[in-house]
């Protein structure tokens, strides 16, 4: 086999993992508060800028950049919940959709105001080094993304399935009113969900910065890709979001290789259309048994 395929595989999985993390953010919010958060992609963009600020401007080491990003986005998640979600609570689906779209525009414009309109680069920790492993060119950033994604997903599963608070979150996702009748403070669970979703988006943004550049336009298209991942993975399914993300990433990278980079977005949408025709319920069509 041509070593290029292994190289493309790693690259596709890494990009896919990023889409998967953004899609996970979508899914957590969909499950807990039944809102599709169209601002989710913008947190990927914002993550890049926050990482740049901590890493390049303030000179923090990479691990500290990641930790600080998590903290900043957890706080932002609480603010997002209080400012965007809570005031519209009880509104219909479209109301929330417009609310989150408005949030996306605000975030983008505030980011432009703070960091300016030009794209920047932020390379930590590998300074764009590429390793040649027996003819296969490996970008260590790809491996870092994959390792971090495994870690984050494992952490998320541990939280959801092994901790009391995680169970309350699953209970709220499965039946909100019954959860309330049992005494679950669903409002707090909602706030926590926003914090977790945003933190995941922010970390993904820091990790993907060396691949995508730190750019105001990253969020919208990545958000769309994650949305595709959510649909083809199976609406509301956690493993589905990841699988969908990986699939979109792979398709994109291989399309770029076989055609040109201009084809990667149309091909991703073609996959979406194919799924909507052949298997509209997604890879992990929702069964009550495995809904988390």
């Amino acid at each position, binding site marked *: 086999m041509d070593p290029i395929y292994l190289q493309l595989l790693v690259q596709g999985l890494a990009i896919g993992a990023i889409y998967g993390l953004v899609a996970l953010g979508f899914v957590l919010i969909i499950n807990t508060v039944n809102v599709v958060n169209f601002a989710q992609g913008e947190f990927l963009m914002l993550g890049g800028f926050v990482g740049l600020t901590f890493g390049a401007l303030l000179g923090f080491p990479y691990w500290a950049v990641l930790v600080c990003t998590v903290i900043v986005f957890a706080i932002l998640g609480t603010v997002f919940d209080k400012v965007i979600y809570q005031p519209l609570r009880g509104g219909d689906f479209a109301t929330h959709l417009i609310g989150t779209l408005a949030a996306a525009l605000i975030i983008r414009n505030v980011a432009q105001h703070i960091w300016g309109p030009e794209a920047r680069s932020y390379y930590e920790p590998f300074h764009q080094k590429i390793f040649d492993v027996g003819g296969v060119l490996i970008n260590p950033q790809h491996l870092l993304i994959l390792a971090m994604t495994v870690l984050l997903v494992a952490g998320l599963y541990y939280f959801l399935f092994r901790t009391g608070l995680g169970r*309350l979150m*699953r209970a709220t996702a499965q039946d909100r009113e*019954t959860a309330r*009748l*049992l*005494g*679950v403070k669903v409002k707090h669970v909602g706030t926590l969900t926003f914090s977790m979703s945003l933190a995941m988006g922010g970390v993904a943004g820091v990790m993907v910065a060396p691949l995508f550049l730190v750019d105001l336009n990253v969020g919208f298209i990545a958000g769309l890709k994650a949305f595709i991942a959510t649909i083809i993975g199976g609406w509301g399914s956690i493993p589905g979001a990841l699988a969908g993300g990986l699939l979109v990433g792979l398709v994109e990278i291989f399309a770029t290789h076989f055609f040109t980079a201009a084809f990667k977005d149309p091909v991703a949408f073609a996959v979406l259309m194919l799924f909507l025709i052949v298997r509209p319920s997604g890879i992990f069509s929702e069964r009550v*048994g*495995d809904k988390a």
Partner: protein
Amino acid sequence: MSAMLKLASVSAFYGPMQSLHEASLEVDQGEIVVLIGANGAGKSTLLRAISGVIQRRGEISFLGERIDRLEPEDIVRLGIVHVPEGRRIFPGMTVRENLEVGGHAVGRSAAGIRQGIEEALAHFPRLKDRIGSYGWSLSGGEQQMLAVGRGLMAQPKLLMLDEPSLGLAPLVTRDLFDIVRGINESGVPMLLVEQNVGLALRYGQRCYVMETGNIVKHGPTATMADDPVIAKAYLGS
């Protein structure tokens, strides 16, 4: 002695529609009070008004404290546990997890939750064999037992059960009601909504009859069973 739970002229609304009209009701320590009436008479609405999941007006007090402005999650913490109609088990969670959620939801400690699960399983030994099974895989009777067991995890001072017999075979229903009576005798008063009037009158001490959102009659179950109107309308004799 004043009543444990007291409703004075309580009305409830679904949006603009009023579905409960100035209902007054009392539940005393130790008793089983049953609510009967046709479909849509407002029985479930009354329970939902007490637990706070719908908009209500009027005065509701529990153990001498006004609760009609509290949120559902705070009312549970005061000790009123509402086991809703249709059991509403979390389908994607195991029996054990469903019980655990019942304890975590009101902030019980890990030790408290372990003890609570043991107590719940002592009441419903059949759940022991299904402890690792998912909610969706349980039979109707098992689901109802789990729903009541999950309610017990909050250490209720008053238990409200909404149509526990719904869709259950007569034998299963009888088992369930015997267990429910046992729970009552262990010191938990109950407000019980039941379509099966014969059953309700057999297990309850006092009874309220509802029609189109109003409480139209109340009294001890012993005299209700002999009431010709009740007999004709609900017992089919």
